[in-house]
């Protein structure tokens, strides 16, 4: 406790002018076709978006995109292509060697291709450890920018939440872009 008091009293002693909080008003960018923009942004981030058409079968879309996936995790109803429910596992380490995880996101962000997820599976590892990640969102849920995005999160409570924009990537060796640094190599967002 004494360190806390020392720090706070040093702050009070040294703080001069107290600036006002600005009003966060701005004309933030908005897009005519948010869905198209979201797909473009996601593509630039190394991911892919598909728009479901009437009569499309979601399991077929997943199968088409990941024909080689044999270990598919999902706790969502209707994902018949899943081979196991990740919530049945006691230890997140057992998720290693998962080929594909199918999860649900809350909404997408047009300006950067990100999907907002909050932990809705037992182990948050699932979002990161599988080789590929499929996120399902409602096409009408896409917001223009991060200001709108954070407004949408206002009343959400979560222990872990994340904006995920495309696959895991790095450019730490000579600035050469490589997908799949530690997390998913591929990200597919299905717009329902």
């Amino acid at each position, binding site marked *: 406790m004494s360190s806390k008091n020392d720090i706070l009293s*040093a702050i009070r*002693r040294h703080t*001069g002018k107290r600036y006002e909080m600005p009003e966060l008003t701005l004309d933030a960018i908005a897009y005519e076709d948010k869905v198209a923009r979201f797909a473009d942004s996601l593509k630039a*981030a190394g991911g892919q978006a598909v728009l479901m058409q009437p009569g499309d079968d979601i399991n077929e879309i997943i199968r088409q995109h990941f024909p080689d996936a044999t270990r598919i995790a999902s706790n969502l109803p209707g994902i018949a292509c899943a081979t196991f429910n990740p919530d049945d596992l006691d230890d997140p380490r057992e998720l290693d060697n998962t080929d594909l995880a199918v999860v649900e996101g809350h909404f997408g962000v047009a300006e950067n291709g990100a999907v907002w997820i909050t932990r809705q599976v037992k182990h*948050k*590892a699932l979002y990161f450890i599988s080789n590929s990640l499929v996120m399902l969102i409602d096409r009408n849920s896409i917001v223009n920018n*991060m200001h709108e995005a954070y407004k949408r999160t206002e009343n959400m409570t979560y222990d872990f939440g994340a904006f995920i924009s495309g696959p*895991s990537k790095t450019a730490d060796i000579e600035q050469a872009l*490589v997908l799949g640094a530690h997390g998913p190599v591929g990200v597919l967002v299905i717009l329902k």
Partner: protein
Amino acid sequence: MSTKHSKAAARFIENRKQEAWHDETLWMVRAKRDKMSHSLPEWERLRELASDIKLYSNSHLDTLLEEFERNATANGAIVHWAKDAAEHNAIVDEILQQHKAHTLIKSKSMLTEECGMNDYLFGKGYDIIESDLGERILQWMKLHPSHIVMPAIHIKRQEVGEMMERVLGTEKGNSDPTYLTHAVRKNMREKFLTADVAMTGANFAVASTGEIVVCTNEGNADMGTSFPKVHIATFGMEKIVPDRESLGVFTRLLARSGTGQPITSYTSHYCRPKEGGEFHIIIVDNGRSDILARPDHIRTLNCIRCGECMNTCPVYRRSGGYSYTYFIPGPIGINLGMLKDPVKYSDNVSACSLCLSCSNVCPVKIDLGEQIYRWRQDLDKIGKASTEKKIMSGGMKFLMERPKLFNTALKFAPVVNKMPRFMIYNSLNAWGKGRELPAFAKQSFNEMWKSNKIK
């Protein structure tokens, strides 16, 4: 010209090809940033807001940090306060001891670098594993970051390949970045799964919700925190932002400025400990509260560590991160070093051409170049002004105050053009070190003006 910076820069420049690559690559990142900023009509408004929010939050640290602590505690986190590096490291040590931990998996944090934490913990027998690819490469090579966002930007792929042949047994002569990255991915998987405790820094700490936000492209922070029961997050207290609405401003600026991406792959919000686990958050001062008392330099606390001032700096690009004596290089590092210890780090203030490009691109509008200029004015006060330069400016002053003598000197100046090299470039001419003298004009401007050659 005999600062430590100029000497180290001279060594960097010796490898012309590498210097050119470094310069061009960082400029490419700067160009990507321009493309991003030009795609948003509200860019300048965002910078203004970001700067104003930081001025507010850094002048209300007392109330915001307490608000953060209240909310984080309500979320189930355990909040610690560290006055300095020693306290910070001791807190981490204690948590590791409590959990009988041996291996700590870490995501990139310049704060732990600032605190010298890894060496401290290695000394206590722990194993610290850096999980960011660039940091991991540096750890294997026993080096420190040369850039705060692209830590291994100074290392060539061949060097990485050769190192990995020894460390990971990768194919001989294979230096393909995809091959090498995936070799590390495979090696790191096991480390992620078996580490005892996870540690991350924080890009933002949100006062109104008590959550911390970590931005990475690799997802290494998220992988790291997914398996151990214990997560330690540490942040310098200027990382506090009032609320999620403010986050909207910063998350739009950070990656666009730093790497030219609209956002990092992962912007992760850590709110509560996992079931049956512990979430420790360390709030670190380590000199930051002292900066509050210096109105001229208070804006350095705006910094969100995007690294853009390095990418744009003509001196940084051509001299490399190791030419600076402070652990953070480039324009922000020059300033933070001077605030830490002006006598120790004064060599860096000359590493600036005062072009002010950094001030013009900084997403939180820190007056970086202007502050460097102010530090230079104070060098004499701390006994760090260059003697040679003082003599030269003394001479200039003497001449300038005597117009007749000045004009006579000017008249004879062209004589220098014909003087043998050794007479011009010697120890008496500090200006001529590392520079070529321009040829003196045959006629001075004054003479040309008077003889009506200029109208």
